[in-house]
């Protein structure tokens, strides 16, 4: 069972989608991002992003499991 990656704002434009599925499941959020950067030229490095798994912010070394939803969060601009 794959994981789902969600994109927002400029990252969604670059990825060309709001979300996509990835399998096999990478071990960590950092490993997932490393794999995605081989496909997309996001223009954001890992150091500029936050990551959430199943709607909660986590560290990049968090391990991933089948069916997780991973959100990549670029710099925000609300307010």
């Amino acid at each position: 069972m794959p994981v789902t990656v969600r994109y927002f704002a400029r990252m969604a434009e670059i990825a060309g989608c709001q979300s996509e599925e990835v399998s096999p499941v990478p071990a960590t959020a950092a490993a997932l991002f490393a794999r995605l950067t081989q496909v997309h030229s996001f223009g954001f490095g890992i150091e500029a992003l936050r990551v959430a798994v199943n709607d909660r912010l986590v560290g990049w070394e968090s391990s991933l499991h089948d069916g997780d939803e991973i959100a990549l969060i670029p710099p925000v601009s609300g307010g």
Partner: protein
Amino acid sequence: MTVALPRVSFLSDTPLATAELRRSLEHRSAGAVVVFEGVVRAHHEGRRVTGLEYTAFDLLAESEWDRLGAAASAAHDVIEIAGRHRVGTLAVGDCAVWIGVAAVHRAPAFAACEWLINAIKRDVPIWKRERYGDGRVVWRHDPCSAPPQMPIDGNRVAP
């Protein structure tokens, strides 16, 4: 019997009901109310803005707002906090964000309100896409937001 009350949410896809938000701060001990409103300006960095659009990571935006409100309440002697942020399409002059704080005294009301809007702009996953007079449409990604280190264990800036 436990009744599940409808949860008031931080994000709103309709114009902010500012009078109703203000009323939600009424309290017999509240001697001071401080309100911040962020409004869509007609210009940004010299370019004419014709409108803009906010999009959000809804669930995380709500939980981040809850976290920030709790942090502000813990750090300042305040009575009530209310906040609302627009998503969707906005025009110049529209209210994008409304933050109100009621307190017994004014100093903590000012401090909590200003801290909250700064924290929202730093942490809450909402993004703005501006439309300019020349037809361009640009996502904003403020480089001061989204702190590089993980914020999971709370506040990087003391409220």
